[in-house]
């Protein structure tokens, strides 16, 4: 009972945040709202007993991405220009129909935590039954991420590494110096 109450409260806050983000024009406030949005989402994950996901959501969505967006805001203006107010009924219709279809699609989804759901029928049971003996790691999520799905995690790490290197190559100090040299060379 209390779970449902907390769920409803958090989802209401989530919806309020989403509407506020859309309506706001001050980008600084929007970034803060995004941070709160992530924090509420992390709270929802905690209720679903997904501690690891909640942790990531709070750290990445609520923390790092907020700071990165603030850093990006420092390079641009912090106010969004007001869009031309023009009511388009066609757009509203498309959005409503798409939303209705998506909601209709969720009707066929298995209930939350249903043991017979297809997602829980594949390799999940084996991990749960054997994971403890095979890896000796109490946190099953860590066992799956690091051991059973080690290749995936290696790929993720490589992706993060690539992202960092891409940022360095595009706007890092060396890239800037080289571009400057190229500009000077072409102007001569």
């Amino acid at each position, binding site marked *: 009972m209390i779970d449902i109450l907390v769920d409803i409260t958090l989802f209401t806050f989530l919806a309020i945040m989403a509407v506020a983000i859309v309506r706001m024009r001050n980008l600084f406030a929007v970034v803060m709202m995004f941070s709160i949005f992530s924090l509420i989402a992390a709270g929802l994950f905690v209720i679903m007993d997904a501690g690891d996901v909640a942790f990531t959501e709070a750290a990445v969505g609520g923390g790092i991405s907020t700071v990165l967006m603030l850093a990006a805001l420092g390079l641009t203006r912090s106010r969004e220009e007001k869009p031309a107010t023009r009511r388009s009924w066609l757009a509203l219709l498309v959005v409503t129909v798409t939303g209705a279809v998506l909601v209709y699609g969720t009707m066929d989804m298995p209930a939350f935590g249903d043991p017979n759901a297809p997602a829980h029928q594949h390799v999940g049971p084996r991990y749960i039954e054997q994971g403890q003996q095979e890896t*000796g790691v109490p946190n099953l999520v860590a066992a799956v991420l690091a051991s059973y799905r080690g290749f995936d*995690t*290696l790929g993720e*790490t490589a992706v993060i*590494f690539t992202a960092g290197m891409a940022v360095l190559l595009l706007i890092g100090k060396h890239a800037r110096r080289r571009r400057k040299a190229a500009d000077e060379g072409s102007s001569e």
Partner: protein
Amino acid sequence: MKHHLVLRVVAKFVTPLILLFALYVQFHGDYSPGGGFQAGVIFGAGFILYALIFGLDAARTVAPVSVLRFAAGLGVLIYGGTGVLSLLRGGEYLNYNVLAADPIAGQHLGIIMIELGVGITVASVMMIIFFTFAGREQS
């Protein structure tokens, strides 16, 4: 933000706690929620807080980008190297069972090593991205 005394005092107090918590999340990931990725992000966040309050130059003195670049590569190398090590010891790539005398100890060792690799890479990449973005403002 040199003139915000309250922020400076609080940040000075909180930063070591954040870094300590990141290490806890890193090495306790086998037993509780958390792991290399989360720990790396928290560790990076600690440094970013320091940079926000005490200035980019102070943070870059503690963690120069050249070191971070090296660390980002080192993390992936540790991860991949663990796989190569298990190959050399006669198992499949990233099969930790062969890393130690008995499979459970091997799994434990392997998971700790690759989580360490993930943590190092994630922390240094987060710092690299922030330092590069924030460094553009000054120029």
